[in-house]
């Protein structure tokens, strides 16, 4: 019945995501054992379907799996197979964790890493920073120098938190993104991903600065009339 146990474990996690059930002490002990086992599997960074339960345990284990998530992502450094990268990304994108962020930042900045893993790392950085964003590979690799990156937003995303991100990580990601976007020696898809990450964070900055956000009243514009005193104002500047 081993496989049945694994199925059960995986979907206990699934259910917790929905209803947030309370855990008993006995359950906690059981979970600690599962977390340890899951961490060893996750750290290998090569998801296979029969071990999905282990990746799902990230939701329950939290910081206990922080190192495993970090190690798992570092394993992607030499991977150019986007199927594998997508599989790992899809299992980790909603695990918000400082170790995972560090691993992603490290690969993104590493010229020796595969271009594909660098792109996925920048997607991971954005997924770490914004709650409702679901960065996708096709958008991240196709943003030219004069393009604007498309973004997706999601509802029903459940974010599991491992080790919380330091507040400086947003600026760190932005700085990295700008440097990669401008790096003429970087592969085209890396530069594209740099633009995407930079633009997404810039746009989010504008949005956060505009809060509280309310639907536009659709009031007509003020008349031009005689020039009024005071300076003209700008709601949002141009991106530099």
């Amino acid at each position, binding site marked *: 019945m081993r496989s049945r146990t694994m199925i059960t474990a995986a979907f206990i996690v699934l259910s917790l*995501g929905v209803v947030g059930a309370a855990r008993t002490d006995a359950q906690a002990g059981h979970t600690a054992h599962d977390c340890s086992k899951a961490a060893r599997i996750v750290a290998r960074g090569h998801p296979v379907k029969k071990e999905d339960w282990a990746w799902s345990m990230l939701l329950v284990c939290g910081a206990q799996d922080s190192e495993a998530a970090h190690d798992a992502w570092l394993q992607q450094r030499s991977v150019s197979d986007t199927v594998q990268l997508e599989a790992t990304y899809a299992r980790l994108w909603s695990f918000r964790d400082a170790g995972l962020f560090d691993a992603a930042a490290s690969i993104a900045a590493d010229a020796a890493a595969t271009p594909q893993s660098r792109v996925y790392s920048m997607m991971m950085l954005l997924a770490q920073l914004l709650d409702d964003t679901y960065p996708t590979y096709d958008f991240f690799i196709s943003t030219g120098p004069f393009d604007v990156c498309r973004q997706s937003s999601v509802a029903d995303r*459940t974010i599991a938190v491992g080790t919380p991100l330091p507040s400086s990580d947003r600026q760190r990601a932005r700085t990295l993104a700008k440097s990669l976007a401008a790096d003429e020696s970087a592969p085209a898809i890396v530069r594209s991903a740099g633009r995407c990450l930079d*633009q997404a964070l810039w746009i989010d900055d504008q*949005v956060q600065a505009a809060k509280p956000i309310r639907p536009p009243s*659709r009031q007509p514009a003020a008349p031009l*009339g005689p020039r009024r005193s005071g300076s003209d104002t700008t709601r949002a500047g141009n991106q530099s």
Partner: protein
Amino acid sequence: MSLLEFPVFNLTGHASQTYTVTVSGDAPPHLTVTCPAEVTRGTDIDCAISISDSTLPFTITDLSARVVTRSAEVFETLHLPMPGTIPAGHVYHLRGPAVTTTMLTASASVTVDGQPIMLGGQAQFRVDPRPMEHEPYIMQLRPQISGPGGTTAYPRLGAATFGLYQSRSPDWNDIKTATVTSGPNTGLSYVLSIPGIPASLIYLTFAMFPGDPWYEAHPVHAGPLNDLGRQICTQSKIDRLRLDVERHEGVTLADSSHYGIDQKALRDWQLNVDFGGLVVNLPGSPQLVRQQMALKMATEWKMEREYVREIQDAFDSIDTPAILHALGCSIYLKI
């Protein structure tokens, strides 16, 4: 209201008009600036500048347009090219596309009896939205469904929930823009066409479908209890759960779904008004101008998304527990 008055939003504007006035004696000439009172965005306008005494040449010394840019939120002053001296009896025309409500101001000098005289004149025209700017900017396509038979893989760790609703932004790179090269709005860029909204994606976990191990592990008949002492949901209850999740995400296009909420917010927000009315005064290559305009649209889109997110979260906080409560059983196999 007289014939020459017209409403300018919540105030009253005054249209310029050309008068022919016969004066006796040595009344000084005056400068006349005329424009049509209102036009639709993107259509050509012809503003004329002349002086009352057709026997005199005049020199335009300043020509500027005060305009509303960026979705009617910012005023800017454009300094327009000056034509120099206009021969006697001639009228100077400014012809070109009108893209935003504008106050055109001209200053001119004329020499009368050897003495220079400075003259000034103004005219305002209002630019009305194009029909496309009144159309609702909503999703025209049904959401695409993942799950068995679907084409899109479920984003995994998000598999902590039974479903995931993904809204995709328009392709900002499909925006068509133009920059006005003549007339009173010279230098302004505006939007010619706006890309549509792609279909949203709905991901459903395979777990709720017959054949999946989790589904099959649930009993066919009611009876078994889990460790919490609660009756485990039967497979038919999981079928019901699946239907509720499909409705919750928007498979059925229900108003009470993430898709329905998304659509309503888009309808309320009227992004076409912002997008269609976007007028900017930016230097740089056409590519750069288009990119900056696209960034402004992407920012406005994100504003709307951020607003909707709060509504979606509130919906989840009510609907998700309601779905699970309505089952009357526990979805847990074992705790």
